[in-house]
Structures are given as structure tokens and as C-alpha cells.
């Protein structure tokens, strides 16, 4: 469960990105495709080469959704409701706990490479919990 402290840390951390959110999104996706090649199977229609416009624009979408979730930490279910439908009925990505685990890992690495020491154990814990909560919500309607 996200504590008040977790929520504060998440919002602060996101705030530190200062406009670089989209870059972070694209980088997280690129890292994910590179470290976990099976995740590419969900994007056969994409140009997955480094720096591709599609990765950039999809990274931007992902980050916008996460940013929105971060503004609505007290009601993730509602904030992510549309996305939850999309993932369950349309995209049918394997239960998000697996895919999000890879995206979560790569997003955290992207954050850690930017924040260095500021990616403290407490921040790490809060972000990990947040991504886990997002994964749960996205998986709600799978069956």
C-alpha cells in the first residue's frame, strides 16, 4: 500500500525530471526492448531501431499516463481505468505483472541513471511500489 510518505517521494521524484519525462519514457522503452527482447513481440508494427519516432512517441504516451497516475495516487483505479480496459480487452499484453515488471525495472534504471545518489533506497521502494500498484490496476479486468 502506498503510504503518504511514498506518495510524496514519488511526486518529488517525478518533479525532479524537469521536463525530461518524455526522454525518460523513450529511454525506458528502449532499455526494455534491449534487455528483454520478448517484449518486442507486442510491437511488430513499430520501427524498433534506436531513436525511432515511434519509440519516442510511445514513450511519451506511457510517461503521460504515469504522470497522470502520479497526480491521482489516491485513486489509481479510476485514473487508469481506460488504460486498464485497453490492456485487458485490446492489447492483451501478458498479465501486466510480468511485462510491467520489465518496464518497471527499466524505468527505474532510467531514473537511477539520471538521479544517481538521489535514487535513494526510500525513493526506490516508493517507485517500485507505485509501478506494482499500476500493474495491479492494469490487470484488474483481465478476467
Amino acid at each position: 500500500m502506498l503510504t503518504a510518505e511514498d506518495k510524496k517521494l514519488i511526486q518529488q521524484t517525478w518533479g525532479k525530471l524537469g521536463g525530461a519525462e518524455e526522454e525518460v519514457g523513450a529511454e525506458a522503452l528502449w532499455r526494455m526492448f534491449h534487455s528483454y527482447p520478448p517484449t518486442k513481440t507486442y510491437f511488430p508494427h513499430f520501427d524498433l531501431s534506436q531513436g525511432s519516432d515511434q519509440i519516442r512517441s510511445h514513450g511519451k504516451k506511457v510517461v503521460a499516463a504515469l504522470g497522470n497516475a502520479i497526480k491521482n495516487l489516491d485513486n489509481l483505479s479510476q485514473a487508469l481505468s481506460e488504460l486498464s480496459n485497453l490492456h485487458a480487452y485490446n492489447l492483451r499484453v501478458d498479465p501486466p505483472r510480468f511485462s510491467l515488471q520489465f518496464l518497471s525495472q527499466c524505468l527505474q534504471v532510467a531514473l537511477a541513471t539520471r538521479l544517481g545518489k538521489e535514487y535513494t533506497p526510500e525513493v526506490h521502494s516508493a517507485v517500485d511500489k507505485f509501478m506494482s500498484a499500476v500493474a495491479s490496476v492494469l490487470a484488474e479486468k483481465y478476467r
Partner: protein
Amino acid sequence: MVHWTAEEKQLIASVWGKVSVEQCGAEALARLLIVYPWTQRFFSSFGNLSSPTAIISNPKVRAHGKKVLTSFGEAIKNLDNLKGTYCKLSELHCDKLHVDPENFRLLGDILVIVLAAHFTKDFTPACQATWQKLVGVVAHALAHKYH
């Protein structure tokens, strides 16, 4: 047997050469206990684990983290025989310590994040991919003797 390209070996060696095993090991283990608190179940004899600060400064955590990462160093010296290298440790974790191998994956992922925070932009996507592969095969080797 796992195949390592020359580039992968180079990425592993160059990162490892700059790592303080003591510092990095302590940090990785502390983060495991902080981010995934249920893992504390294996360390009930370690004393005060009541808060992130307590965990980070706990001398037993630091010492054990160093031990764990030192063992990782052995794996790096024996990339072509990880299962052999970890045979005894695998039996130990199964028969004596009763550790669910899922925990190896968790620690591996945490180690990658610790490296990312340490090396910042030098921890490139190629670097991460190689290290994710390494922690994955180490976890696999450690789980190999489970029965």
C-alpha cells in the same frame, strides 16, 4: 551453457573493475530488505531491521552484502561454468537456508539499479542488457540444485 560475446564480457569486466564490492554489496542487500521487506524473513538473526536507516547501517547487513557480492565476483571469473561455480551454494540455499529462488531474481534486479545509480549515464542500455543477462544466469545457476 551460456554464450557470452566479447562485447558482453567487456561490459561486465569494465563495470566490475570500478565497483567497490563492499559498498555495492552492502547497498544491494540493504535495498533488498527495504524495497521487499518480506525478504527480512531470512535475516531474523541480524538485529535491528526496523527502518531503512537501521538496515543501511546494520553491520551484519553490510558484512553479508559484501559476502554475497564477493561470490558474484567468483561468477564473473567463471562465466563459462556458472552452474559448477554455484553448485554448493545452490544446495545450501535450498537445503539449509530454504530461500525461494524468486529472491535471487529480486536481488539481481536491485543490483542492476544500484549499478545504474552509481554509474549514471555510463550505465548504457547495452550495459544494462548485459548485466540483466548476468544476474539472470546467476539466479538460474543458484536455483539449479533445488529439489
